[in-house]
């Protein structure tokens, strides 16, 4: 037995006022240019991944500051708009369920249109997150730490939007449980030989694994938020609870607990008691690596299986072997475009965001857009070539008469919008100054997002609106319900993304710290 006194209680010190963002660095680094110092062309030099010579404490303050600051008015405005749009979309879904699929513009010939277009569009967007966290992790691309968290969040939200459409397009929505692997009342099981059922398994596995991957990555950062809330309560610098108001200052509610007390509880439960132990980190990193290893084939399999929905049918324009790789390249393309579309405005809006998401990160993603856009362009031309070379007149007619030729194809404008947005726009990135300019990248990303929606529309509607017998030919026209359902899904997506921006760590804090020079174990910083 030995008696020892604990050291006298030591007060928290040195972390300053934790909700205050560090001072912005002077921009730009090279005067007279937009160069922030990361656009080094010399391969012997390594561009910094975090700018402004930030310390660990600065990075923590920057990232946690977004989640801890009082709700900004602009956020409240945007949230009001997007959640209203989401409510309209939800209303449309309710209207569809009550009334029936007749409220959509579908007809006997075009029985898949905007519903499946939207499904493939959203599930495609949901590919960038896992690609960044899995494939770029295996390839040891350290720059991914700047975007992986927000891209993974975007993945989850896109999959949420995607999941709506197959559920509601079945007509009698109360039979959607037929998708699940359970026998129906005649003891007949779902058809496991159908790609539609593979799709159910692929998408639900993808949603589950992406969600777990995202959550596991957030556990340490949630623990950081927990500890900071606890520290503020401990030091008595915690704010009162105030309801944010669109005009003027917030409305104080004295009976509510302090926001930090709520944070400490919610982040505390969500961080599962993480205590940053190295023995835990060891298993955590192993688990992360294995997840990256299995997510890589998973992300490739999901869009391949989505493409089987089309490719295993005998409809000209769908029945092609190029579909799986073509869909995967398109998904990565569309996903990265959405990441850029969302993150580039944040560099302007959020303080110090551009320290962590530098011009070089944008340039790298622009290069990926160029690569995948060119792959998609190659797939478009290869599809056309095979349609001609295969000498199947129906297949050739789908391309020439239903898509390309303005004189013959009523949907020619959709096809040429797709070609312009997906193939031509990314070619701008061959020029260095374009792929280093955030505005140009943002415009191209917007074009690609539009183009990728049109790609799915072209594949689905132009292939089936004219079947083998001209007597069956019919056009598809969307109704207002079609349009508002799609707009509503965008509202759901943006609402979820805004909630993420405000309440969760937007950057993977622990991973960003790993790529900072102070994390090295030798003394040479």
């Amino acid at each position, binding site marked *: *037995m*030995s*008696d*020892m*006194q*604990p*050291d006298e209680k*030591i*007060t928290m010190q*040195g972390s300053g006022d934790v909700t205050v963002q560090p001072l912005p660095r002077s921009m730009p680094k090279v005067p007279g240019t937009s160069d922030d110092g990361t656009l080094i062309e010399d391969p012997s030099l390594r561009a910094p991944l975090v700018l402004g010579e930030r310390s*660990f*404490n600065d990075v923590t303050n920057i990232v946690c500051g977004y989640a801890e600051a009082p709700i900004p008015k602009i956020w409240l405005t945007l949230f009001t708009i997007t959640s209203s749009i989401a409510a309209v979309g939800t209303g449309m879904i309710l209207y569809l369920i009550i009334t029936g699929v007749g409220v959509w513009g579908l007809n006997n010939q075009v029985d898949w249109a905007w519903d499946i277009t939207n499904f493939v569009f959203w599930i495609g967007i949901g590919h960038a997150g896992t690609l960044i966290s899995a494939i770029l992790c295996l390839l040891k691309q350290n720059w991914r730490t700047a975007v992986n968290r927000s891209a993974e969040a975007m993945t989850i939200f896109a999959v949420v939007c995607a999941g709506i459409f197959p559920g509601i397009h079945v007509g009698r929505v109360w039979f959607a449980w037929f998708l699940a692997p359970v*026998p129906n009342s005649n003891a*007949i*099981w779902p*058809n*496991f*030989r159908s790609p539609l059922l*593979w799709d159910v*398994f*692929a998408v639900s*596995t993808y949603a589950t*694994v992406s969600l777990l991957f995202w959550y*596991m990555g957030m556990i*340490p*950062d949630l*623990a*950081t938020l*927990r*500890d*900071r809330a*606890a520290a503020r309560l*401990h030091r008595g610098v915690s704010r009162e609870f105030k309801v944010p108001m669109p005009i003027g200052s917030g409305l104080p509610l004295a009976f509510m607990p302090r926001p930090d007390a709520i944070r400490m509880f919610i982040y505390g439960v969500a961080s*599962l*008691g993480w*205590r*940053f132990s*190295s*023995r*835990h*980190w*060891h*298993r*955590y*990193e*192993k*688990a992360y690596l*294995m*997840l990256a290893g*299995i*997510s890589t*084939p998973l992300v490739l*399999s999901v869009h391949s*299986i989505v493409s089987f929905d089309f490719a295993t049918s005998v409809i000209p324009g769908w029945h092609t072997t190029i579909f799986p790789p073509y869909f995967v390249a398109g998904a990565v393309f569309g996903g990265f475009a959405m990441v850029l579309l969302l993150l580039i405005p944040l560099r302007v809006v959020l303080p110090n965001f551009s320290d962590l998401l530098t011009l070089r990160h944008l340039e790298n993603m622009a290069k990926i857009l160029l690569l995948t856009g060119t792959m998609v362009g190659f797939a478009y031309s290869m599809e056309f070539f095979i349609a001609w070379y295969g000498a199947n007149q129906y297949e050739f007619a789908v391309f020439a008469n239903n898509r390309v030729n303005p004189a013959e194809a009523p949907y020619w404008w959709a096809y040429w919008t797709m070609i312009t947005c997906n193939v031509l726009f990314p070619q701008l990135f061959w020029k260095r100054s374009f792929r280093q300019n955030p505005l140009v990248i943002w415009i191209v990303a917007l074009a690609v997002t539009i183009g990728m929606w049109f790609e799915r529309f072209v594949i689905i509607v132009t292939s089936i609106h004219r079947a083998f017998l001209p007597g069956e030919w019919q056009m598809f026209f969307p109704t207002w319900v079609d349009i508002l359902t799609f707009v509503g899904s965008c509202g759901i997506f943006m609402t979820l993304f805004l909630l993420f921006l405000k309440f969760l760590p937007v950057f993977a*804090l*622990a991973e960003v*710290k790993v790529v900072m020079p*102070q*994390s090295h*174990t030798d003394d040479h910083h």
Partner: protein
Amino acid sequence: MSMFTTITNAAADYFPMLLHKSSPRFVTASGKPVYGIVAEFDETPKVFKAAQHVRDAGYTRWDVHSPFPIHDMEEAMGIKGTKLPLMAGAAAIAGVATAAALQWGTSFVLYPTVVQGKPFEAWQPFVPIMFELGVLFTAFMCIFGMLALNGLPRWHHPLFSHDRFMRVGNDRFFIVIEATDPDFDPAKVKKLLEDAGGKHITLLEDAD
């Protein structure tokens, strides 16, 4: 460490009330058991070197806490490999087997159906779901297996009552040597951590 102690240690994290606690070897003046001694470091190279010192001194029940995973720390601490990959491999096999049983069992045994003229014995259409369930089970094992091996989730830990430890998620590093270590001797541990460059060396009580 015997198999039995491994199991009881793991169980102690989940069902502490079921285990008879042996009386602690060290208590504070107020009679509370000692959890361990913690030292703080402010830079990565310092904590890395200190970890090597503690490892070389032969301690076994100790830990390094850092805001991010430090490269090569498992070597500096002498952590042996984890069983997680083996567990994940077993989960992968279980997932593939489940998918195989589900698909063959239902469309071959329970209600044999010919759909689209595809033969019963064709295994090819079952591959995608076998792959997907294999991935799903592996992912579950990776995450929940990792948490279980780490003894998480848990509500509280003696370290959380240490005020300075609130900065571990920000920019501070901590080494803690637990009182359950067979070589634990408060004076020696304190000396070791001081020599290794640790600051704010504190004795922690186990609140329970």
